[in-house]
């Protein structure tokens, strides 16, 4: 854990030195600070640790214990209704899951929905952030509120609203589009479209909020200087704005990807996984809660956890996302 941390820190520092001279200098200062800390810094660190450890302990208790329990259970053939006949099966559950076409199909669908929704949300979210930032002062409040409303609605409630909007019996969207007898949840692509739409509607505000934070950090004089130098609108966006908010874009991307990958509510409410729309989370739910195969279900959950870990790793290592960026 500690090794990993130091390693992480070093890479991000190297990266920082490479990119911008100003940031490089601050990183160098930090490195020097590490060599001989002042008494004050040490005390502050100690105080920080003392203040943080209860939270850390609670976190470990409520997340660490269930995770370890799931890992342990995933090595057993166990049915909740027949706990006495549980037996250790040497990781056979993992073989079962990984050789089952259903796992790969749900993984494929989950990735598809993740990539599609996050990509759309990123573009939309950026547009909304620009609107929120540049709106006239008089309407800024209402506009921000309107953009953020979907994010305040509980996912299950949102999912039901979308379901009823498209459902053949109660829906009005079909009538709007002149397709009264089209069953939106009757085939893969239209189900995918509705689920994605619901997800995008619901979580774009989250991305735009993070983007807004990034946009607000860009110094106005930098943009002014670019304008004076004759940069067009597009050049200012691509050369000045985007590079300067890279950190917030990456953080937004990472959080949303992690969240999108665990999608459950919308699918559960709208299709219950029919027509190939089951996701990895719903697969874990089905094995554990409906089938009561706690061993097999735990194996799926552990694999889901590993997948989420890999996504984290990809972003932090692969794209050099610096989670502490906001602090500096």
């Amino acid at each position, binding site marked *: 854990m500690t090794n990993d941390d130091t390693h992480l820190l070093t890479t991000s520092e190297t990266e920082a030195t490479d990119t911008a001279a100003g940031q490089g200098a601050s990183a160098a200062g930090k490195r020097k600070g590490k060599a001989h800390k002042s008494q004050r810094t040490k005390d502050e660190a100690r105080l920080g640790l003392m203040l943080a450890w209860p939270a850390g302990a609670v976190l470990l208790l409520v997340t660490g214990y269930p995770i370890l329990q799931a890992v342990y259970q995933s090595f057993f053939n166990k049915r909740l*209704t*027949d706990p006495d006949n549980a037996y250790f099966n040497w990781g056979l559950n993992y073989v079962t899951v990984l050789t089952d076409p259903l796992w790969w199909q749900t993984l494929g669908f989950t990735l598809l929905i993740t990539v599609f929704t996050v990509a759309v949300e990123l573009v939309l979210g950026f547009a909304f952030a620009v609107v929120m930032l540049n709106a006239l002062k008089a309407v800024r409040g209402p506009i921000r509120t309107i953009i953020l409303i979907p994010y305040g609605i509980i996912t299950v409630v949102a999912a039901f609203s979308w379901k009823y909007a498209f459902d053949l019996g109660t829906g009005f969207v079909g009538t709007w589009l002149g397709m009264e007898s089209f069953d939106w949840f*009757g085939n893969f692509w239209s189900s995918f479209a509705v689920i994605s739409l619901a997800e995008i509607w619901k979580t774009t505000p989250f991305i735009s909020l993070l983007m807004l934070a990034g946009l607000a950090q860009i110094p106005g004089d930098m943009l002014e200087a670019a304008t004076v130098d004759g940069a067009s609108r597009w050049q200012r966006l691509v050369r000045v704005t985007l590079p300067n908010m890279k950190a917030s874009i990456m953080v937004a991307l990472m959080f949303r990807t992690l969240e999108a990958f665990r999608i459950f509510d919308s699918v559960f409410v709208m299709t219950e996984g029919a*027509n190939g729309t089951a996701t990895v989370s719903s697969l874990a739910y*089905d094995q554990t*809660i*409906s089938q009561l195969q706690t061993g097999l279900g735990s194996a799926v959950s552990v694999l889901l956890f590993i997948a989420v870990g890999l996504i984290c790793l990809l972003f932090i290592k692969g794209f050099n996302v610096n989670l502490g960026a906001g602090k500096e």
Partner: protein
Amino acid sequence: MTDPSRCRRTRLLAGAAMATATLVALSGCGSQEDAKTLTWYIDPDNGGKAAMADACTEASGGKYTIQTSMLPSDAAGQREQLIRRLASKDNSIDIMSIDTVYVPEFANADFIAPVPEEYVDEFTEDVVEAAVESSMWEDQLVVAPVQANTQILWYRKSVAEAAGLDMDKPVTWDQIIEAAKDQDKEIGAHGIRAESLTVWVNALYESQGEAIVKDPEAEPEDTELGLDSPAGEKAAQIVDTIGSEGLGGPNFSNLDEQGAMLRFQGENGGFMVNWPFVYPAMKAAVEDGSLDQEVFDDVGWAQYPAVEEGTPGAAPLGGGKLAVGAFSDHQDEAFEAISCIRETQKQSEYYITDGLPPATRAAFDDPKVQQEAPYSDAILDSLDVAKSRPISPYYNGITGGIQRSWHPPADVSPESTPKTSADLILEILRGEALL
């Protein structure tokens, strides 16, 4: 101690802290006459169960108080909640209403207390056979049958007449399909990937004398299935025809009981197999003006359709059972309460208020039943030949396998679907496949 205001105050505190609750119990402040509180987990209805709970509380003369606790609305959700609680030995579950198909799973896991000898005769007397059969596990009565639901064939008189179908005689699926094609009308069956699909597929097998699971009490590894059989081919052909020729309507692959009813009321409605809830629902729709009286008058009913001419169609059996939680501290009182809830008069009333047919034959004799539910003779006829879905503790895997391989109905193939579903279910039962 008897000062009521003091008791009330103490109870308020009890809500806030567990320790206080214990104190209240010790001080005997909980109630006047030591009435035991029984919790009855019920599926949502029109309020009939809560009324019965009140009536039986009254009738017990202070011996027990029944309070109801609402479960999720679909049977699968009810099972999930009950089973999770029972797996952690929840002693708050005194009485529970469970769907007939989950009885073996609960019984096999020792989650329910078997019916004591003294109640066995009372709970099975005059009860339709399929309802008794599905209340047994390993030759023991484990739950009390209360409702015995079944599907019948609903049809539009005008459509049947135009197609020249004589509805006084039993009809077959092939005849209905012919008539619907001929008249360009729909057949309301349940193509949704849910329990309703299994109900239908199972009825198609049972109507041909074939069972989906041949030896329901076998261990999962040794289970023998009747899925891959000539009966399966015929069943798949019926599902496929209705699905792929558009006879089920545009949203057939998502059509459940409610949806089928709505389409049946529409201009393309022709035939529909469905539970009797549709009658009071359509009647209510007429009363609130959302359905024309004309359409309602055009609705007829008959026994569940057959697959082979001459053999009556094995209508699906549904309905609720009453079970006593294995970890309940008040099992004696719970069975006493069930005996009260099951009274014939109450079953008749429940049939009228909530639309669920009683399991006891005598409850159909009430003149009010005939008046409010004129289709009751068809229900009773269907119940006499009704067949339950596989009575297996691994039912959930079986129905899951069927739902996955027989959906969407338009893709069902008489040649391959019965075999693929059999293979899938065996793998699921052995824990070698995900569901």
